[in-house]
């Protein structure tokens, strides 16, 4: 990876903020976009914009080919067996809600068990809480080890014959832990449960193959992987999608409609009611093309190395720093606290040095409670971040600490 060349592709990275060069370390919230993606969207709106699927004219045909082409590319990117297994939503959250309503609403009954973990993002937690409440099912949680991994010692009791669905994040957006989702999905399969993987923090950063993971559903968001906002993806095993009733109703997803009733198209269209975000999907297709050209293996190695370097430098500079999550290989994000300085104040002071980090509960309040802190600071990297940026971040951190001392 030629970092300085690659950075040229991202216009947002070359701006000054409060007079300082921007160091963008808030990638777990959303990534910046390469010019290729921004231009693909502009070009679509400038020349090919039309509603898809039903139009006979040239623009509608171009838009449909581009939209379905992006679907095929994204399917290949995650190793999906067919384009039809990829449903477009507005974000990962909608994808997860769709499964909770459309699959869960039918297959989960009173007394059944839903298994999830205390390290989930709210988007992969509250839909299951609500499903459990609606169906009177039981919500059961993995334990966490002291170093922030899932406790697998009781896996077979945790995921038992009463379990209908296991919802687990691939990579924690707080701890950086990479969870053994293949093993968990296998156990789910053994007891006849389905396994949904929240890939919001994995798909953008590492090679992910749904057939190797052998999961039933995978949800992720385009905006965290160089794509535009407003596009999420739900991958579903073909048999499961075929069984699922739709969840949103309207144009594009119907087969036959009378005043009394309606029948549905097959997946994926059945789950895409209304005009889809064609421009957004095309943008995500361009993002995937961009990422593939760089190589997901390379991106992952780069980020693992960055987070290792980052943690090392932080500990050197501020020995009392608290770093959350496991030692060893972990994703390119670091949640931390500097004793005596609230993460908000850290983020504020760092911002004035041009360094963008995030502070707060990271949509993981239950995990915050387990970690014994109401909030943390988080520095999260992506393919374009450099060690020099980590150095700037750490220097800014030292200044911030001194400011509040």
């Amino acid at each position: 990876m030629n970092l300085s060349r690659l950075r040229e592709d991202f216009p947002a990275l070359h701006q000054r903020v409060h007079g300082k060069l921007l160091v963008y370390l808030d990638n777990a919230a959303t990534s910046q976009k390469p010019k290729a993606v921004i231009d693909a969207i502009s070009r679509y709106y400038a020349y090919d914009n039309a509603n898809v699927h039903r139009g006979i004219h040239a623009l509608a045909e171009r838009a449909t080919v581009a939209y379905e082409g992006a679907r095929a590319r994204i399917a290949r990117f995650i190793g999906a067996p067919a384009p039809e297994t990829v449903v477009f939503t507005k974000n990962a959250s909608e994808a997860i809600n769709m499964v909770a309503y459309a699959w869960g609403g039918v297959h989960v009954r009173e007394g059944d068990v839903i298994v999830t973990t205390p390290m989930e993002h709210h988007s992969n937690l509250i839909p299951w809480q609500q499903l459990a409440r609606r169906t009177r099912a039981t919500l059961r949680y993995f334990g966490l080890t002291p170093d922030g991994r899932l406790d697998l010692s009781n896996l077979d009791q945790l995921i038992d014959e009463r379990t209908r669905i296991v919802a687990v994040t691939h990579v924690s957006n707080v701890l950086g832990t990479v969870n053994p989702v293949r093993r968990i999905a296998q156990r789910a399969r053994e007891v006849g449960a389905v396994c949904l993987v929240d890939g919001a923090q994995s798909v953008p950063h590492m090679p992910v193959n749904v057939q190797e993971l052998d999961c039933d559903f995978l949800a992720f968001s385009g905006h965290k992987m160089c794509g535009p906002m407003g596009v999420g993806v739900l991958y579903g095993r073909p048999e499961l999608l075929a069984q699922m009733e739709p969840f949103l109703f309207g144009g594009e997803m119907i087969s036959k409609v009378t005043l009394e009733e309606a029948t549905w198209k097959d997946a994926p269209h059945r789950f895409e009611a209304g005009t889809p975000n064609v421009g957004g999907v095309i943008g995500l297709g361009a993002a995937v093309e961009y990422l593939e050209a760089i190589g997901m293996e390379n991106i992952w190695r780069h980020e693992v190395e960055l987070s290792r370097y980052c943690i090392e430098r932080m500990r050197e500079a501020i020995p009392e720093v608290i770093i959350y999550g496991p030692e060893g290989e972990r994703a390119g994000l670091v949640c931390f606290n500097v004793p005596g300085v609230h993460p908000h104040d850290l983020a504020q002071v760092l911002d004035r040095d041009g360094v963008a980090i995030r502070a707060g509960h990271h949509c993981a309040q239950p995990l915050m409670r387990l970690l014994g802190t109401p909030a943390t600071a988080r520095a999260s990297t992506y393919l374009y971040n450099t060690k020099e940026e980590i150095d700037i971040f750490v220097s800014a951190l030292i200044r911030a600490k001194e400011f509040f001392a």
Partner: protein
Amino acid sequence: MLEDLYRELIMDHYRHPQNRGRLENPTVQVELHNPLCGDELELQLIVKDDTVEDVRWTGQGCSISQSSASMMSQALKGMARDRALKLVANFQAMMHGEDFPYPEVELGDLEALSGVAKFPVRIKCALLAWEALSKALNQSES
């Protein structure tokens, strides 16, 4: 400028918070939190004869939310309930860059927090204690 936000007085209150703790016999108490960041605050008052006789607060939060609570608690002690409500309105107006609705009620030291108005995301931090106060005063209406 960062100095507009982190004035000396604010940092003093952050490092040495006033009236932090719990009361034995509050007449009213309110717990609030800021969903944006997880900040939490519990405010306890003793309101008697339409006067705020005592104040305590606990909570976790950033320098702005903590110093705001601390400065508020200092200003509040012995204040008539009516006047306290006006103080809330003035403080909120200051945060939103509006004119004081009750110019006769002065903010005093609290004006040190005026710089927060330039940092939209932090306004909620400064207001947390005041929202709690507003709720508490309304609850303590006899």
